[in-house]
């Protein structure tokens, strides 16, 4: 298993270490619920160095990225990032990812980063390289993952804390924009974005600078109530925000339209998987669709629990399955997401989740469960 550059720190903070995507990661430090609330009310700091970063540059870089992701990046300016997915020819999601567009290199070549999930990184790289080799041989793809640490600082007080580490004005970063800056004296990429539904930043720095930056954020954040947070809180936070977790909510058997990712599909440009997605759209029928639900009766839905139409008909087959489920610390109820037939996705619709031997009533509600107050 791989360790992040902050492994020593996690252990010194008594982080409870678990395997995730081939990495040893802290699932929590002291208390998941406190970590969760710290992000919603104050700030939390996550080590997500397990995530993958590819640099894509050289002649054809733009065309390659246009080809492999569903989202149109033709109007993207340097300093902007976008969310997108990569699809197979069949429209199945290979990964969800973000693309960062940097200023052009001195020779005029465009330069991008693609930031991907840890568990899919190798598969993603192989896929992108395959398309490069076939169609865009001049593009240079570098896997930067091992040299880069990624820290997510999330929560309403993130700006107050992070601005103490830099001379640049981070407040001018709007949502999904980034800057190249120095935190302390280390070069970093900082974007206003994240995976919690809260205001905050994703910070990329050299692995060797990670400890220094982590420690300084903890120190500057401590008076504000910042906590180091593990993957456990990250998961409850992203679920409340209705965000997809690859491998749970989406994978190669699900399309963007079936998941929440319709909005990252740009059918007016060419990309791999487009024909299949057009067919799915033209049919005006999805074999399954993700929905959010809350538990009406007592019980916590979990990943892969079955969904039923009826509480009593023992012969009936399940109509779907839960992709993510958790108690929501912010909303103080049990929530989840499930794939069900389209007719069950209207808010207010009731269905039953099989929890051990009992079918427990749940009700469809609109995603996201939680939206941060403006």
């Amino acid at each position, binding site marked *: 298993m791989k360790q992040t550059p902050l492994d020593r720190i996690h252990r010194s903070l008594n982080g409870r270490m678990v395997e995730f995507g081939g990495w040893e990661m802290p699932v929590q430090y002291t208390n*998941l619920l406190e970590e969760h609330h710290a992000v919603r009310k104050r700030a939390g700091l996550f080590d997500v160095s397990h995530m993958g970063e590819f640099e894509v540059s050289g002649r054809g870089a733009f065309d390659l990225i246009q080809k492999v992701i569903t989202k149109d990046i033709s109007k993207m300016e340097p300093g902007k990032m976008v969310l997108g997915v990569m699809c197979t020819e069949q429209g199945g999601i290979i990964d969800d990812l973000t693309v960062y567009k940097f200023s052009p290199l001195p020779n005029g070549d465009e330069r991008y980063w693609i930031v991907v999930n840890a568990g899919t990184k190798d598969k993603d790289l192989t896929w992108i390289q395959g398309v490069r080799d076939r169609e865009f041989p001049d593009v240079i793809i570098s896997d930067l993952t091992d040299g880069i640490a990624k820290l997510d600082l999330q929560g309403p007080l993130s700006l107050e804390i992070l601005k103490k580490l830099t001379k640049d004005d981070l407040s001018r970063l709007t949502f999904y924009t980034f800057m190249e800056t120095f935190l302390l004296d280390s070069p970093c990429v900082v974007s206003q974005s994240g995976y919690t539904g809260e205001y905050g930043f994703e910070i990329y720095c050299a692995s060797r600078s990670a400890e220094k930056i982590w420690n300084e954020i903890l120190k500057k954040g401590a008076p504000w109530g910042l906590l180091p947070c593990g993957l456990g809180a990250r998961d409850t936070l992203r679920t409340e925000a209705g965000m997809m977790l690859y491998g749970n909510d989406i994978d190669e058997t699900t399309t963007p339209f079936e998941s929440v990712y319709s909005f990252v599909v740009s059918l007016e440009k060419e990309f791999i998987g487009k024909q299949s997605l057009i067919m799915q759209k033209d049919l005006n029928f999805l074999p399954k669709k993700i929905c959010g639900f809350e538990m009406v009766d007592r019980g916590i839905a979990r990943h892969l629990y079955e969904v039923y139409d009826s509480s009593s008909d023992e012969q009936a087959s399940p109509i779907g399955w839960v992709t993510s489920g958790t108690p929501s610390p912010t909303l103080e109820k049990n929530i989840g997401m499930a794939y069900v037939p389209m007719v069950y996705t209207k808010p207010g619709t009731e269905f039953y989740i099989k929890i051990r031997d009992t079918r427990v009533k749940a009700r469809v509600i609109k995603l996201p469960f939680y939206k941060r107050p403006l």
Partner: protein
Amino acid sequence: MNPSDRKYTKEHEWVKVEGDIGTCGITHHAQELLTDIVFVELPAIGKKVEQMKSACVVESVKSVSDVYAPMGGEVVETNKTLEGDPGKVNRDPFEEGWIFKIKLTNPPEYDTLMTADRYEAYLKTASH
């Protein structure tokens, strides 16, 4: 720390026997491993349980864990207050956080369980 008026299982349950009734719960160590308990699914009254078979379930935010019956019998009472306040199991696992009571069918099973001293030694050797 583990009370000596009861006995313990390797799966970190305890049972305190009074007459033919055994009161059962999970240990301080178990609640620490589980972290925040957010849900206790109590067994049905009248449910027959066998020693070291699952009697009910406790859930933390991230995990679902069986609670094994330390001894066999029939469930005669459950701690209903845990439905509204499952965190009691974290705060007071040995008293207020008891989970269910069973009418014992085979009292000699008690001899197969660990005393508090042995349980503490077990925790050390199990390298927790």
